[in-house]
């Protein structure tokens, strides 16, 4: 008999027809997922072919091991009821008993035909939700600020200082690298054009105004949004996942005051300094190329710069830095606090936070350009 099969051998089907004309299907071997392996797909067809004969006797006593997958395979071939003639081992009986009692799987949810409208509607509501959330968070911060003015001992100095270091000091490397390269490229391209008109001297005006007024602040803001904004969102999000935010709440420590406020203040302070640093390095990059390409001396460049660029441009750049820094921190914290405790929400929240921050930075820049169009330009 087939009992002497190896312990890991897959199932074997054997059809026997006795003298009185009844046919028997003898199954032997292992009917488990691991044993079946690649044999599973062809077996589905074989079993279905055999099951077409209702008078067939199924002899499963030779099956050494059977698991749920094996049982389901047979059960499906039998069209979900036991065949008329079935021989089973008692320990496998239980598997089929369970299958008989198996609840029907839930029906798949029909797709809504109005989905374009619902999707659009949801997006609008989400936007509204974010807007309200941001306004509420800003309001809360204002209230916190008023409270802290009354209780200066409660100002979270330590958190502010830590954030200042992380978002400011640690960002100096990357902003310097990017600023320098942009300065070099800008100076190189402009000097070639200016040379054609013999207007070499105006390289100082072009570099000065564009870097100090526009490129420095925007570059720094975009880099900081990508770097510090994402880390702020992720930090708050992980705190939500690990229930640290709830732990703070039950201790009576408000999130806005201890987590959001220090970040907003720190980035508000760090950002103009980073802007100053980025602009300075970009100007140095431009200056180096101006010397190589046009032969403008460093001393000449530096002494002409105050005449070419009004000091108002510098204040404008620093002002943009303060506003962008605080807005980036605010948006990052808003998205961070909205993250739900699952991994997908964490990734989505961080992406949305960075994309929104960068977009808003550019919008702020545009607003500044319009509002201060008469300032600092001659």
């Amino acid at each position, binding site marked *: 008999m087939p009992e002497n099969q190896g312990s890991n051998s897959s199932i074997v089907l054997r059809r026997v027809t006795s003298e009185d004309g009844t046919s028997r299907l003898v199954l032997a071997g292992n009917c488990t997922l691991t044993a079946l392996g690649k044999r599973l797909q062809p077996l589905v067809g074989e079993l279905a072919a055999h099951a077409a004969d209702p008078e067939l006797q199924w002899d499963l006593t030779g099956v050494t091991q059977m698991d*749920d*997958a094996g049982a389901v395979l047979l059960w499906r071939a039998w069209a979900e009821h036991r065949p008329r003639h079935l021989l089973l081992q008692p320990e496998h009986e239980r598997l089929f008993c*369970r299958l008989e009692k198996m609840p029907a799987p839930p029906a798949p949810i029909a797709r809504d035909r109005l989905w374009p409208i619902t999707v659009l509607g949801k997006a609008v509501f989400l936007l509204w939700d974010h807007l309200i959330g941001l306004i509420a968070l800003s309001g809360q911060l204002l209230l916190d600020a008023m409270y802290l003015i009354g209780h200066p001992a409660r100002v979270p100095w330590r958190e502010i200082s830590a954030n200042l270091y992380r978002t400011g000091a640690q960002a100096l490397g990357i902003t310097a690298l990017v600023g320098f390269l942009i300065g070099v490229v800008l100076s190189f391209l402009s000097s070639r054009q200016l040379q054609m008109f013999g207007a070499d001297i105006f390289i100082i005006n072009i570099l000065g105004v564009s870097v100090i007024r526009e490129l420095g602040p925007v570059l720094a803001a975009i880099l900081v949004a990508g770097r510090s904004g994402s880390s702020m969102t992720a930090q708050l999000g992980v705190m939500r996942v690990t229930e640290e935010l709830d732990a703070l709440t039950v201790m009576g420590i408000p999130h806005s005051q201890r987590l959001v406020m220090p970040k907003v203040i720190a980035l508000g302070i760090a950002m103009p300094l980073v802007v100053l640093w980025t602009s300075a390095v970009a100007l140095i990059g431009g200056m180096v190329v101006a010397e190589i390409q046009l032969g403008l001396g460093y001393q000449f460049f530096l002494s002409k710069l105050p005449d070419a660029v009004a000091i108002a441009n510098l204040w404008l750049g620093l002002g943009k830095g303060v506003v962008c820094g605080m807005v980036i921190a605010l948006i990052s914290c808003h998205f961070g606090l909205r993250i739900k405790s699952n991994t997908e929400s964490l990734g989505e929240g961080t992406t949305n936070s960075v994309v929104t921050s960068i977009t808003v930075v550019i919008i702020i820049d545009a607003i500044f350009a319009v509002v201060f169009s008469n300032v600092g330009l001659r």
Partner: protein
Amino acid sequence: MADGECIIEVEGLYTRFGSHVVHEDINLCVRRGEVLGLVGGSGSGKTALMRQMLGLETPAQGKVRFSGLPLHGQDRKKLQYMRNRCGVLFQKGALFSALSVYDNIALPMRELRTLDEDIIRRLVMLKLKMVDIDTRHATKMPAELSGGMIKRIALARAMALDPELLFLDEPTAGLDPQLSDAFVKLIQGMRHELPLTIVMATHDLDTLVALSDRVAVLAEQRMVALGTLQEVINAKHPFITSFFCGERGKRILENNRGILQG
């Protein structure tokens, strides 16, 4: 049942985290078909030992073999085959939070690439029934579930491929007594139907007494006792005395006298 060949062999295993030594010279054989309980105080390295057996961590020294084959240095295909024969219930469930309950259980089945969706659907329903979860919860996300349900669904996922070896890390931690009892019954029932080997790390004496054939006790970086519950209790070691013969331990052992002597 107790005298099977070794399904997992641990040989001269040392674990170090930096300068902190967790295990010193651990030797252990998990026999096919048994339930081995791993016991030890907090920080004694129960979970760490289990992670070594799973190949999630590489021991500082020593070897772990699964069915006679070393866990490290295997080719991909063989390792995958070995992994498919193991199921793990992590302490906190480790359900994929981005997938629904249904997809969590279906994932290991889909990864096999031999089963069609129809069979997978039936199997998932069967597994849910096995752990006594109503099918209407199938579409829920893990974040919407209670702790007990997460444990049971994680068990269903661990059992998705009907493994021959099951690792349970604190299976009843965080469950109320009724749910723990139900969990113990569930595992006993599964053992009845399938030739299952279980390695279980636990603090819970009730679970330990009800399920384990043999008990390994970890204390002071070493395995201080290994044997049936009765043998372990008779071993004289301060940790064993305080663990089994404390107020709680005595009461539980008293209630289960029948099991111990039988």
